[in-house]
């Protein structure tokens, strides 16, 4: 794409186009080919704003795991374009934590091109202030990709009523023997839970952090640098509550 996208483009409908214009045109997306039988892991920490674009082609019986912490800058976007070959496996664990007037988004396209591949996407977003956090995720299953097993598990937590969360899982399925689970939920911290924590002596900010920590940090499970990711996420959460 050479022309600057507008919000009429589906994949950019919640984006901050002004911020995007400042860094446009984007460099070419990174391409990674995971050979048959191999494993690949990557952690993406987007803490200063900008667009990260990664295309992954996961070979036969290969596995790739991506962990994302999307938390920095006016506008932070992570775009993943994943193609799964026979028996391949893809795991995404993503946390997006935004406050102020940040716009944070993750856009995924996961294509099950061949049979027997599995994909699991776990996304937890937290938005405070007037921030906008979005997930746009498409799972495409090709005609021959029988025995596909895919899951999109997407949740967002709004810290106040001025924040926005968008979640759009999308399925395009041409095979007839597949399992494609998808769930989305957008909610607020349980006030009764917060009162319960307060009644045991935990101050409001610490109580919120504790509940948000529980909400978010599970996405980093299995990451090589899990502890560092949790620490960075907690630091950001601490700034929001």
């Amino acid at each position, binding site marked *: 794409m050479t022309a600057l996208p507008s919000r009429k483009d589906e994949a950019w409908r919640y984006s901050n186009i002004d911020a995007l214009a400042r860094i446009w045109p984007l460099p070419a997306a990174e391409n990674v080919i995971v050979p048959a039988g191999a494993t690949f892991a990557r952690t993406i920490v987007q803490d200063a704003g900008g667009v990260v674009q990664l295309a992954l082609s996961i070979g036969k019986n290969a596995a790739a795991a991506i962990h994302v912490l999307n938390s920095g800058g006016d506008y932070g976007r992570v775009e993943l374009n994943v193609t799964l070959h026979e028996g391949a496996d893809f795991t995404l664990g993503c946390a997006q934590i935004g406050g102020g007037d940040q716009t944070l988004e993750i856009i995924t396209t996961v294509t099950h091109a061949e049979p027997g591949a599995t994909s699991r996407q776990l996304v937890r977003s937290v938005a405070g202030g007037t921030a906008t956090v979005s997930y746009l995720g498409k799972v495409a299953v090709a005609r021959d990709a029988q025995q596909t097993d895919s899951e999109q598990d997407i949740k967002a937590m709004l810290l106040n009523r001025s924040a926005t969360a968008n979640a759009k899982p999308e399925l395009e399925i041409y095979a007839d023997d597949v399992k494609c689970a998808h769930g989305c939920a957008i909610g607020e911290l*349980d*006030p*009764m*839970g917060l*009162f*319960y*924590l*307060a*009644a*045991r*002596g*935990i*101050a*409001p900010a*610490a*109580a919120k952090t*504790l*509940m948000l*920590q*529980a*909400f978010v940090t*599970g996405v980093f499970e299995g990451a090589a640098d899990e502890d560092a990711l949790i620490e960075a996420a907690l630091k950001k959460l601490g700034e929001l509550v």
Partner: protein
Amino acid sequence: MLRITNLHATVGDKPILKGLTLSLNAGEIHAIMGPNGAGKSTLSYVLGGRPGYEVTGGSVTFQGQDLLALDPHERAAAGLFLGFQYPVEIPGVSNVQFLREALNAQRKHRGETPLSGAEFLKIARAQAAALNMDMEMLKRPVNVGFSGGEKKRNEMVQMGIIAPVLAVLDETDSGLDIDALRVVGDGINRIMRKPDKAVLLITHYQRLLDYVRPDFVHVLADGRIVKTGGPELALELEAEGYAEIAA
């Protein structure tokens, strides 16, 4: 220790407490009984400071402090423990983490040094054992997947670990079978039956009072205490019903 004077409170603009007066001294256990809708749970939430429970008149002093001026977490640090009728589930937060954070937050508030993980676990183990609770349950997320009885037992473990000065226990006996009732009753006696502590026990039924013998029994009806007596009053209520006594 606790002095409630002419307390009025509303929930969503509806007056619930209408001039409640009650005093507890150190070393005493008071039971509050009363029909549904009398304001028993409202009293416990007002004392705990739950948002939405608005005090419109009267005062509450706790160990000489204006309790109502404190935030809920400050009330806890001051030594108030609120036992919930429906303990809340907190997914993803383990009991151990929650309680250590709670205890250390209270200690910090009081200017005491925080407990190390090992010191905390020692206390937690002792309290769990005293209430027949498996340590494994303490490692699980707070109240998630616990039965009604396990939740109430967990409240008592928390009370044991936190060691408050005053416990306000809202229907801690509801949902308990006979054995669990005894365990919880023993827990209340062991933790709170001390010369420098006090308990306000809110209950519908007399049976918990077989295990935790109150010094005073109050009948709460339509937002006020309408009758006060000794333990025998609970037996009378059980025999005759609230309608008769509160009339």
